[in-house]
């Protein structure tokens, strides 16, 4: 019973409660905006009229969740360790650029092109994340500050690289920066008919195959965190650094390793677009902002790979619904509000329930080991109290 209650209080109860709170709050917001909450809620599930439109929307939902998931995963590795890697944004941008440049310029045999490009992207992200790690370990600089600053620096760095060494030589002088096109061997394949088993039409563009990589990385991280010594050390350092250090886990080494892994996963975030869609890095079209939404996704997913997956799917669902909401005259910024409300609700409901659980445990402890003065208290009122 106690175990069941623990699961209820820590597991699905907060999620359900938070989602309910969020829906109610959103209803209020929509009301204030002058929209009908019920119509808007229905519009969220509007996938379009034609079979093609529905398939396309499914595709954009699934595709949209991949970078969010990877970014959330990258952020969560740091969170698990008590590190706030706000720098996923910068790490995935530079990694996307370097990977695109690499895949465009280096000729590799077909079976090597994609894996090696992915490794290059991960290595770039990891290296960029190494800077804040080293600064923290050697100089004690707070990683929040350094990663934010490195996010800013990356903008300038990319602008420079796209003007100089990484620029497509065929581009005119005044054209906006982009790398040369990725060589065809490194184009990431997709699924032509991903929703056929659901009886749906084929989307007008294949579903990105990078989904497989994302799932694979998710599984590796989940297993690595829960089943390996490294994962244990990481979690231990996160939840109690002193205890971990006392038992022989080197704090500095853990910081560096966690940041490297976080950065390496961040390096994957931009690759679906670079290798699967754009086949190059165009400064104008490379999608920005996943590093920041990843923080929200990680929070919502409570730093657990499965939770992050669900959170990414939810966020992508909301992102996809932006245009559908506009069909019923709800501005697309409501999507952002919805995401914010959900994260806030989850964080706050979690905290409320956590405190409640703590109180319950206190009482349990007190009941199991009653303090001497309380021993005389009559316990006969208990059944009466419970039935009241």
């Amino acid at each position, binding site marked *: 019973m106690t175990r069941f209650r623990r699961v209820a209080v820590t597991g699905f109860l907060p999620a359900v409660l938070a989602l309910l709170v969020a829906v109610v709050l959103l209803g209020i917001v929509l009301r204030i905006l002058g929209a009908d909450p019920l119509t808007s809620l229905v519009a969220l599930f509007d996938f379009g009229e034609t079979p093609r439109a529905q398939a396309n929307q499914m595709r954009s939902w699934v595709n*949209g969740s991949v970078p969010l998931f990877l970014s959330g995963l990258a952020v969560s590795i740091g969170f698990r360790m008590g590190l706030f890697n706000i720098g996923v944004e910068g790490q995935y941008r530079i990694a996307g650029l370097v990977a695109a440049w690499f895949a465009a310029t280096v000729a590799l045999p077909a079976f090597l092109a994609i894996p090696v490009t992915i490794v290059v992207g991960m290595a770039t992200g990891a290296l960029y994340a190494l800077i804040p790690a080293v600064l923290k370990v050697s100089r004690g600089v707070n990683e929040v500050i350094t990663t934010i600053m490195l996010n800013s620096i990356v903008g300038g760095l990319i602008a420079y690289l796209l003007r100089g060494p990484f620029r497509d030589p065929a581009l005119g002088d005044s054209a906006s920066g982009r790398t040369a096109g990725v060589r065809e061997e490194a184009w990431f394949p997709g699924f032509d008919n991903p929703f056929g088993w659901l009886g749906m039409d084929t989307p007008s563009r294949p579903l990105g195959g990078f989904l497989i990589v994302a799932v694979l990385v998710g599984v590796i991280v989940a297993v690595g965190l829960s089943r390996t010594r490294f994962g244990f050390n990481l979690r231990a350092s996160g939840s109690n650094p002193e205890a971990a250090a006392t038992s022989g886990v080197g704090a500095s080494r853990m910081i560096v390793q966690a940041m490297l892994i976080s950065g390496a996963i961040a390096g994957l975030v931009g690759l679906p677009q670079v290798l699967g869609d754009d086949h190059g890095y165009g400064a104008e079209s490379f999608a920005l902002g996943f590093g920041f939404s990843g923080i929200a996704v990680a929070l919502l997913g409570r730093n657990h790979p499965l939770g992050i997956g669900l959170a990414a799917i939810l966020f992508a669902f909301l992102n996809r619904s932006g245009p559908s909401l506009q069909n019923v005259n709800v501005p*697309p910024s409501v999507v952002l509000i919805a995401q914010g409300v959900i994260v806030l609700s989850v964080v706050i409901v979690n905290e409320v329930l956590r405190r409640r659980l703590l109180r319950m445990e206190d009482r349990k402890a007190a009941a199991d080991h009653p303090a001497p003065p309380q021993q005389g208290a009559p316990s006969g009122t208990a059944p009466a*109290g419970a039935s009241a």
Partner: protein
Amino acid sequence: MPRRAAGASSGARYARNIRASVTPTPSVLEEIPLRHSIKATALLAAVALGLAACSSGSSTTTTTTTAPAAGGATTVKVGMAFDTGGRGDGTFNDLAVKGLERAAKELGVTAKELSPNADGTNRADLLRQLADSAYNPIIGVGYAYGDPMDQVAKEYPKVQFVRIDGGPSTVANVAVMDFAEQEGSFLVGVAAALKSKTKKVGFIGGNESMVINKFGAGFVQGVKAVDPAIVVADKRLASGDEGKGFGDTQGAKVAAAGMYQDGADIVFTAAGGSFAGSFPAAKDAGKLVIGVDSDQYNTVSDATWKPLVLTSMVKRVDNAVFQSIQSFRSGGALKSHSFNLKDDGVGYSQSGGFVDDIKTQLEDYKSKIVSGAIKVNEK
């Protein structure tokens, strides 16, 4: 169900533990702090929401403009996908709306507008959605529709796509309508040079992209054509092609205030919605600004900003939209076109009458550019 079970049995434990004097209804007692917390939560989140809604700034609503079809020709259904900021941004997107509304009124087309999400990551989805709903032509507003539009256009080869701004496209059914911003910027540069008393002027660009470089290069060349000794400060709100400089009012305010402090008396801001930062800076300093895209003397929301607008470098996005729809309606496939001074695609505004005294000089330069006697650089 589990909720209730938890309440009851923890209540039992609670009761066992407390003193006899405080016995009543422990489960109710327990409910109170939770409910309070939820109330507090709701309140807090609502406040946060309010803030979020305020900061998003623009009231982006989608409207479907309908008008009776002129003539009885088959009605053209125009799809329009905006740049970030959407309808109501006060500059670029609103100009496109103006063109669309004119087309609805004069040509009787129906239209559907979609705005991208705040991070602008779903541009391709917008275009696909419009194509799936059988809109044709589909107009993407802003250079960021580059790659997304080229991709989607290949998926829907029978649909005409039109991009406002940006580099050329290799896809057959994409027509790019761009502007010779450098030519119009040259003229406002001339106006700034003729009007500057301190012999110092400033340029604030949204970023270092191709389009913004055209603004900057033309402006500098225009200033120097009048007086090479005039100093032009050049400040960009974001590096490379980053889009965040187009909504950075605070950055623009700081940049403009700095320029005025350094002695500049006229600042030209080519940074989309960020103008809303440099205008108040000019007001504080008692100096002037040059508007961008629309004739900002007429479009600014704050009437006290009007006397600050020396002139605006107008970019007739509305004309580009209208003409695209018009030629699509009468002839089908569209060709890319660059709007310049010659066809009044760009120019300077005269509202407020602040440049009336130098109009002859401005017109003189204008005719020289149109005739090709002056060649304006793009970067």
